[in-house]
C-alpha cells in the first residue's frame, strides 16, 4: 500500500511516501526550491518521493493532507466575529489564504500530482493529530503520552494525547489565540529576529541573559496554571487582529525598551528577555508533562513530542532531566514538515487499522530519508565541470584522511548518503570541524556561515563516548534534539558577567573565551545541543568520528548544517559545490570524492551571491 502525505500552505511544506507503513522517502520543498521555509504546494518534494520509489502517481493508494481546511476557515471566521468592524485585516488574511488557497487544496494537489490516489478523493487529518502521529508512530514505544505544541493548527495550539498500539486519542487541548508557540514567536519578533527562522537564534541568545523579566511576563502577559495550561493577555498581541505579532507600544510600555531593529547590536536587555521567555516555555512543558503523566500516563513511561515547540532542544533537555517519564522521543521534523509524515502514518495505522510493531531504535531511519547521489553521478558531474578531485576507494582510508584534516583545523563540507528530513543536518549534509579549537566558533560563524557571532555550534559525539563529555547518563540524542551540560571536569572557569556589562553590545569577546576543552561546541552556560552518532544509523559518519578519536583521543567534532545564512541546507551537488567555493571551507567530500579548495578553478558569479538569500 502506497500513501503520500503532504503538508503545505502554512510553512515548511513537505511530502512523505509510505510503502506498507514504512517511511521510504521524505523531503521538504525548501531544499528543491531554495526558498527557506517554503510553504507552497510541494511539487518537487512529491516528484522526488515518487521517483525515489520509481512509481507513478497512478500507483498511489491514498493522498492525505495534514490539516482540515474547513476547521481552519472556522477559526478565521470566529476570529473575525470576535473583532467585529475591526476585523478588516483578519478578513483580508482569510480571503487571501483560506478562500484562495487552503479550501482548494484538493484541486491543487490533484493538479500537481496528477491524481489523488486510487479513490480519487483527498483525505485530510487534523493538524495536531498529524503532529501527534508523527511523534508516536515512528517512536520505539508501544504506548506513550503525546504532547504537541506549535503556533496554531486549525484551532489547537497545544494538545495532550495518548498513543497505544496503533491508536491515538487526543484528550485535551488549548485553542488559538492562546499559544505558547506564538508567544515564543512574538518575543522572537520583539527581539528583532524573524519569526520561524529566528526562533533558534532567540533560543541561542537565552544563555547569555538572566531571566529578570520572568515574573513580569507571567504577571502581565501569560497566566500559567499548575497543569501547564495557559492563557495569553491578548492586549499585548496583534496577530489575532491580522497585524504583526505584537503591539509594539504595549511591549515598549511594559519593558521600557523598544522592539529591537533587525541586524542591530544586541544589548543585555534582549538577552534577559530571551532567558525569561525560555524559562517560561520550560516551565509550561514540564508542568504539562507532570499533569499528563498524572492523568493519562499511569503505567506509561514514555513521552513523545512534536509541533514546532518540540524543536526547542533546551526545553527538551530540561524536560528529560526532570525524569517525569523514563523515556522521551522527539520527532526530528517536529514542525509542519513532519505533519506530512504524521498524517500518512495516522491513516495507515489508526484509520486503516494496520498492525504496528515498534522498532527497538525507532522507525525514522536516522531521518536519512531524502535524496542521495550515486558515485557515478558525482564522477560525471566533476568530470563534466573539470573540477579537480581525488577518489578514496577504501572507506577506512577516507575516514582517516578526513579525521587528519579536521585535526589540522580544516573545515570540511560533508555530502554523503540520503539528505536529512527535518531542520537538522545529521552528518549527511553537514559542515564538520574540530571541536577542540578555540577559534572555530568565530571562524564558522563569520567566515563560513556568515551569521551572527553569538550563535553556538553543536557537537556530534560517538554514542558510546557521550558520557565522557556530557553530564547525562545513557542519554541518546541521535537527532540533535536535546541539550546537555559539558561535564564539570572539562569546564574552564568562565564568568559570563565578567565579559558583559549592562549595555555591552559586543558578544564576540564572550564567544572567544574558551569554556571547556571542547570550546567550539560549549555554549556560554556550558550547554551543548548534542547529536549522538552510532554505527547503525550512520556508519559512514560514525567511521569519521571514530577515526578522529583514534587520532586525537576525542570522539567528538563540530557539526553544523551545510549552508550559509538564509539558505536552505544544500540538496544537490551543484549547491554543495557552490557553497564550498563561496565560503572559507577547505575541503569538500562528495561520497568518496575529495575536492581541495586550493585546486579548484575560481568561481565566477555575476553580482554578490549573498543577495540570493534573504537574511533569516
Amino acid at each position, binding site marked *: 500500500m502506497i500513501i503520500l502525505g503532504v503538508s503545505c500552505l502554512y510553512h515548511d511544506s513537505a511530502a512523505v511516501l509510505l510503502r506498507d507503513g514504512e517511511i521510504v522517502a521524505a523531503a521538504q520543498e525548501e531544499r528543491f526550491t531554495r526558498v527557506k521555509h517554503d510553504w507552497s504546494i510541494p511539487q518537487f518534494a512529491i516528484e522526488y518521493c515518487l521517483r525515489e520509489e520509481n512509481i507513478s502517481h497512478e500507483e498511489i493508494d491514498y493522498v492525505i493532507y495534514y490539516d482540515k481546511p474547513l476547521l481552519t476557515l472556522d477559526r478565521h471566521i470566529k476570529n473575525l466575529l470576535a473583532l467585529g468592524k475591526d476585523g478588516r485585516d483578519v478578513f483580508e488574511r482569510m*480571503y487571501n489564504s483560506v478562500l484562495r488557497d487552503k479550501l482548494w487544496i484538493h484541486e491543487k494537489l490533484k493538479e500537481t500530482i496528477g491524481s489523488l490516489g486510487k479513490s480519487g478523493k483527498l483525505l485530510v487529518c487534523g*493538524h495536531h493529530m498529524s503532529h501527534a502521529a508523527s511523534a508516536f508512530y515512528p517512536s520505539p514505544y508501544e504506548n506513550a503520552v503525546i504532547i504537541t505544541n506549535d503556533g496554531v493548527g486549525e484551532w489547537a495550539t497545544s494538545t495532550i494525547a495518548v498513543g497505544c498500539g496503533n491508536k491515538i486519542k487526543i484528550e485535551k487541548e488549548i485553542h488559538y489565540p492562546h499559544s505558547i508557540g506564538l508567544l515564543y514567536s512574538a518575543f522572537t519578533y520583539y527581539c528583532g529576529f524573524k519569526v520561524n527562522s529566528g526562533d533558534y537564534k532567540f533560543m541561542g541568545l537565552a544563555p547569555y541573559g538572566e531571566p529578570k523579566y520572568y515574573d513580569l511576563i507571567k504577571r502581565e502577559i501569560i497566566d500559567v*496554571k499548575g497543569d501547564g495550561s495557559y*492563557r495569553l493577555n491578548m492586549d499585548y498581541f496583534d496577530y489575532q487582529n491580522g497585524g504583526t505579532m505584537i503591539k509594539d507600544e504595549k511591549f515598549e510600555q511594559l519593558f521600557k525598551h523598544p522592539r529591537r531593529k533587525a541586524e542591530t547590536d544586541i544589548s543585555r536587555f534582549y538577552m534577559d528577555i530571551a532567558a525569561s521567555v525560555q524559562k517560561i516555555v520550560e516551565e509550561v512543558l514540564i508542568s504539562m508533562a507532570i499533569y499528563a503523566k498524572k492523568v493519562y500516563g499511569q503505567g506509561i513511561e514514555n513521552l513523545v513530542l512534536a509541533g514546532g515547540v518540540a524543536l526547542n532542544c533546551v526545553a527538551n533537555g530540561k524536560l528529560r532531566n526532570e525524569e517525569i517519564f523514563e523515556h522521551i522521543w522527539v520527532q526530528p521534523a517536529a514542525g509542519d514538515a513532519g505533519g506530512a509524515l504524521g498524517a500518512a502514518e495516522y491513516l495507515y495505522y489508526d484509520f486503516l487499522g494496520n498492525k504496528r510493531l515498534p522498532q527497538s531504535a525507532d522507525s525514522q531511519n536516522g531521518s536519512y530519508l531524502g535524496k542521495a547521489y550515486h558515485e557515478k553521478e558525482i564522477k560525471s558531474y566533476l568530470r563534466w565541470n573539470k573540477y579537480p578531485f581525488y577518489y578514496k576507494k577504501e572507506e577506512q582510508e577516507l575516514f582517516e584522511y578526513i579525521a587528519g584534516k579536521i585535526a589540522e583545523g580544516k573545515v570540511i563540507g560533508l555530502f554523503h548518503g540520503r539528505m536529512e528530513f527535518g531542520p537538522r543536518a545529521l552528518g549527511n549534509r553537514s559542515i564538520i570541524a574540530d571541536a577542540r579549537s578555540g577559534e572555530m566558533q568565530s571562524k564558522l560563524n563569520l567566515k563560513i556561515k556568515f551569521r551572527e557571532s553569538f550563535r553556538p555550534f553543536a557537537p556530534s559525539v560517538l554514542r558510546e563516548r557521550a558520557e565522557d563529555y556530557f553530564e547525562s547518563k545513557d542519554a541518546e540524542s541521535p537527532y540533535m534534539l536535546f541539550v546537555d551540560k559539558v561535564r564539570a571536569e572539562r569546564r574552564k572557569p568562565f564568568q559570563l558577567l565578567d565579559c558583559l556589562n549592562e549595555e555591552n553590545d559586543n558578544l564576540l569577546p564572550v564567544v572567544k573565551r574558551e569554556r571547556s576543552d571542547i570550546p567550539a561546541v560549549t555554549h556560554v552556560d556550558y550547554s551543548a545541543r548534542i547529536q549522538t552518532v552510532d554505527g547503525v544509523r550512520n556508519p559512514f559518519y560514525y567511521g569519521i568520528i571514530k577515526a578522529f578519536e583514534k587520532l586525537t583521543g576525542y570522539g567528538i567534532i563540530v557539526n553544523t548544517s551545510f549552508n550559509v545564512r538564509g539558505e536552505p541546507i544544500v540538496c544537490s551537488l551543484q549547491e554543495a559545490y557552490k557553497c564550498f567555493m563561496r565560503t572559507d571551507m577547505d575541503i569538500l567530500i562528495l561520497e568518496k570524492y575529495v575536492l581541495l579548495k586550493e585546486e579548484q578553478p575560481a568561481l565566477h558569479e555575476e553580482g554578490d551571491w549573498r543577495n540570493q538569500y534573504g537574511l533569516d
Partner: protein
Amino acid sequence: MDSIREDCFSSLLQETEECKYDFGEINSARESYWMDTVLDYGVEVYDIEDVHDLQEKIENITGINEKSAKCIAISAVRESFQLSDRMNDAEIQQMKLPEFVYRM
C-alpha cells in the same frame, strides 16, 4: 476592494452583531485552561462538489447564517476560478450560482 469581497465582509460584519465570539481571557480563579477535545481531528474525505456544497459545509462547521456562508462560498469559488485557467468565463456563467453574485 471589489464588490464581492466587500459584500462578503459586510455580511460577516452583520453576523458579528448577532454572534459575537469570545477568545477567552485570563481568569486567575480558574484552575485550568485545558479543554476536553470535542473537535474531530481524525481522517476524513475532503471534497467540494460545488458552491452549494461548500456553502452547506461552511454553515455546518461555523454556525454562521445562510447569507454569510453563501457569500463566503461564492467568494471562494470565484477565487479558485480566477487563480486557475481551467474554466473560462462561459463555464463560470453556466454554473448555478446564487443570484446576488451577478447582482454584484
